[in-house]
């Protein structure tokens, strides 16, 4: 028997407690000193003996209770050696089949299956076999069996996928598995042994737990492979990069489709890299599915399609709450956001009296050019908006200077100010360049500040910019699920020259991206990557894979944190914060069919075989099938608990004493 969490066995020490308590109980029984027992006579009713027995039973139950509790937490495993293959002098033969994208090369996988079958059949009669497949991880395809036919039958269901295989990762995974198997372990690796799959360090290819590596090379010859290497968006359209791997030229036809409709076609003859430009794309609003397809006579077809998302999103409206629609702050902020190269935002100035706070839920974030103008009602609405996940970028302008506290954030305002007592100018003293809203900005130290609204930062506020007199100039505060970014100065161009400094534009654009949360989401992934659903703005949702199947079960739609993107194509993601599409393509390294050099492979084989002498390694029993016992122990624990409660209740009867 083994334990999954043996440290919990330390809990057994707790059985000292009932022993101690019962000892006290025994000592405090009706035992009284008497001058002499000479004239005494033992009563017929041996109450104390009965009581002692009851105490002993209770003690036993309590000790059993604690023992069981410790055992349940320690998670014991019962192993039954009889249910497993007997000791095998020929050890274990692992048949590992490469199912990475490159193995879908024409005819290669059939060769691989045949090689794997031969490896199974040629294994020693006393050996136990296990069939595995490998792409970006190791997958067990059959149990550890002595029966060759059972292992061979499992070959039928294995198909190559679109994922990448790294030989270093495979060896590391096999090494952990082999430690639990009957020794010696012989690894039959059926693969095309791509050079691009080799790790940087040769040492990563060596496993101490594997006694011998038998490589079964498939897909020999001079391969040629076309691949769509890149899709780059340009102002007029897209540039498609195509690469032909091989030592000779071949013809291919490029077909470009947008949202399922073919919009362009080119024929090329090349042996290297070719970039074809497609202009005049008529995109729809939102995410557009762009697919490049190669019609070519090459050896690997899985990389002849490449998928891309072209975003054609109209600028998102950002409400700018102001007192004066024609004021300088509106001009500065509008101009800054219009200069965003992605043209993602459009400022909508709204005069404070006309703004309908019920519309706040339509926006991801809100601008206020002077937080001092916010009324009590609007403050409540903005606070609720931020608390529910909205964001606010606010400036503390001249109207804020007369207030006692900053609305929404609640920061108190001190009466003193930078330039209030003298006409000095201050510069920025400290900038948190690690913050996403400031990491792409430069030139803060050229900003001159003559006056600020002196804000007291709260304990949980993050001061992003401080002036040289250590006063906070930019504060970020988290409220509920949202955040408030507050600049301790206005945009009237009177208290500081920030609006006319170049840094203002980059600050506003980066802050807009940060507050809108768009910079965290990429829409193009490599096959095998994981898509974090929580970073897309919502907690889970539903995902449709390229074949049109739901990726998440009904239960997972509410709790899944991420999904693995294993198929090339378009995944449709539906979350509570919106819908979008992501494109998934095979790893381009799988397109390079160049096999590893013979010398390197031979060195690998030697290194693996030289780890230990297979004949010298003693045979061990096959890792037995383990049964977790904690369920049964939990049941017994419940029964003991009931018994202990009932018996303990009997002792609760009041004791009469002399």
């Amino acid at each position, binding site marked *: 028997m083994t334990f999954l969490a043996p440290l919990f066995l330390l809990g057994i020490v707790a059985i000292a407690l009932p022993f101690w308590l019962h000892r006290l109980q025994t000592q405090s*029984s*009706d*035992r*009284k*000193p*008497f*001058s*002499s*027992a*000479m*004239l*005494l*006579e*033992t*009563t*017929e*009713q*041996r*109450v*104390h*003996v009965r009581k002692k027995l009851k105490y002993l039973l209770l003690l036993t139950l309590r000790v059993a209770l604690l023992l069981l509790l410790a055992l349940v937490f320690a998670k014991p495993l019962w192993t039954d050696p009889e249910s497993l293959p007997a000791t095998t002098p020929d050890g274990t033969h692992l048949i590992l089949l490469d199912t990475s994208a490159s193995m879908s090369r024409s005819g290669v996988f059939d060769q691989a299956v045949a090689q794997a079958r031969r490896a199974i059949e040629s294994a020693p009669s006393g050996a136990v076999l296990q069939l595995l497949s490998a792409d970006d991880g190791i997958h067990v395809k059959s149990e550890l069996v002595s029966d060759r036919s059972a292992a061979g039958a499992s070959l039928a269901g294995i198909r190559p996928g679109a994922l990448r295989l790294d030989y270093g990762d495979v060896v590391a995974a096999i090494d952990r598995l082999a430690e639990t198997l009957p020794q010696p372990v012989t690894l039959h690796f059926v693969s095309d042994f791509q050079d691009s799959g080799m790790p940087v360090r040769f040492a990563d290819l060596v496993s101490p737990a594997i006694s011998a590596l038998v490589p079964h090379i498939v897909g020999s010859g001079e391969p040629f492979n076309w691949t769509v290497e890149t899709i780059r968006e340009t102002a007029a359209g897209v540039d498609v990069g195509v690469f032909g791997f091989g030592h000779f030229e071949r013809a291919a036809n490029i077909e470009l489709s947008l949202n399922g409709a073919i919009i362009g076609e080119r024929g090329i003859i090349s042996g290297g890299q070719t970039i074809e430009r497609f202009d005049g794309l008529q995109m729809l609003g939102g995410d557009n599915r762009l697919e490049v397809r190669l019609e070519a006579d090459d050896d690997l077809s899985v990389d002849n399609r490449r998928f891309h998302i072209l975003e054609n999103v109209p600028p998102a409206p950002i409400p700018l709450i102001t007192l004066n629609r024609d004021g300088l702050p509106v001009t500065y902020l509008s101009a800054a956001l219009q200069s965003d190269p992605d043209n993602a935002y459009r400022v909508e100035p709204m005069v404070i009296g006309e703004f309908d706070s019920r519309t706040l839920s339509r926006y991801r974030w809100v601008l206020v050019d002077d937080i001092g103008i916010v009324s009590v009602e609007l403050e409540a609405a903005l606070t609720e908006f931020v608390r529910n996940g909205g964001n606010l970028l606010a400036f503390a302008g001249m109207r804020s200077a007369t207030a006692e506290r900053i609305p929404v954030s609640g920061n108190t305002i001190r009466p003193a100010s930078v330039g209030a007592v003298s006409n000095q100018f201050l510069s920025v003293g400290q900038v948190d360049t690690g913050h996403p809203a400031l990491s792409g900005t430069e030139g803060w130290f050229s900003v001159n500040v003559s006056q600020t609204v002196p804000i007291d930062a709260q304990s949980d506020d993050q001061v992003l910019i401080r002036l040289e007199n250590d006063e906070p100039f930019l504060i970020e505060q988290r409220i509920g699920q949202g955040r408030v970014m507050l600049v301790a100065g206005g945009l009237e161009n009177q208290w500081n020259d920030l609006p006319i400094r170049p840094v203002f534009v980059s600050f506003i654009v980066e802050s807009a991206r940060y507050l809108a949360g768009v910079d965290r989401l990429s829409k193009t992934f490599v096959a095998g990557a994981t898509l974090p659903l929580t970073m897309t703005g919502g907690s889970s949702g539903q995902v449709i894979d390229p074949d049109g199947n739901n990726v998440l079960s009904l239960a997972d739609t509410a709790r899944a944190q991420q999904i693995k993107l294993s198929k090339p194509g378009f995944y449709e993601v539906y979350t509570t914060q919106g819908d979008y599409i992501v494109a998934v393509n095979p790893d381009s390294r799988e397109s390079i069919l160049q096999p590893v050099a013979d010398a390197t492979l031979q060195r690998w084989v030697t290194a693996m075989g030289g780890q230990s002498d297979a004949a010298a390694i003693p045979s061990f029993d096959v890792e037995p099938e383990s049964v977790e016992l904690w369920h049964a122990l939990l049941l017994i624990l419940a029964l003991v608990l009931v018994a202990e409660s009932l018996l303990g209740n009997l002792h609760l009867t009041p004791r*009469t*004493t*002399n």
Partner: protein
Amino acid sequence: MLAHLKNLDLVARSVVEGFLIGLHRSPKFGFSQEFAEYRSYAEGDDPRFIDWNVYARSDRMVVKRFLGDTNSHLMLLLDASASMGFGGPPVSKLRYAQFLAASLAFLASRQHDAVGCMVFDEEVRDYRAPSSRSGKLQSVLHCIDSAEARTGTKFDKPFDKFREQITRRGLVAVISDFYCDIDKLFEGVRPLAWQGQDVVLFQVLDSQELNPEFRSNVLLEDLETGEAVEVAPQFMRDAYPERMRSHIDSLSAAAAGIGADHVLVKTSDSLDQALRNYLLFRQRRS
């Protein structure tokens, strides 16, 4: 109140003085210190009582005798076994026995009697030979005071030792709870009586031993043997007092059979009764 006094000498003095004041009012006992006669000086007599005038006139050493002065020996045998530690508050049986022994010693000393003491349990723990010398009383009181209740009880050893030491007839006061086999006890007492010693057995018992009160079954542990006996309240209420009375009666009868006296003393009683018994014995001997 006396129980709270630490000084045994003071306790004994207080008890005896109080007792004597009571006696003087009673003509029945006629105890006094009035001169009675002269007798020849014998070894062991206190030299303070030698009449030097007679010696000057007649060249003979005589000592004065007073009324009630018998020049007898009093030997106190104090049981300090573990069972004597039972009882109280305010005093255990042993402490009460110590008061009693000290009072007897003090009273005897006032009568110019030689007083000795032996503290015993399974062995003889301490022994002071009888003497009427002035400083001897303090030695006897110290011997009594230093007794501690421990181990079991065996009467044969102290009686054997006492028989070896004693040379003169006198009073022997055995102070114990007498939790023992009476036949065996009297195997030691009987030779003393045959030697001519006047033996008085002071049996000291606590009221919890005479009339124990228990409302439920209780496990009683023998202080000497450690034996635990589970007893029912009915037994302690009915049968046990009967057994105790029977034991006391047997002891009393056995004592009477050899001419010894048996006095039952409860720790809740005053010491006067015991002192009266002593005087009666002393009177009888004289």
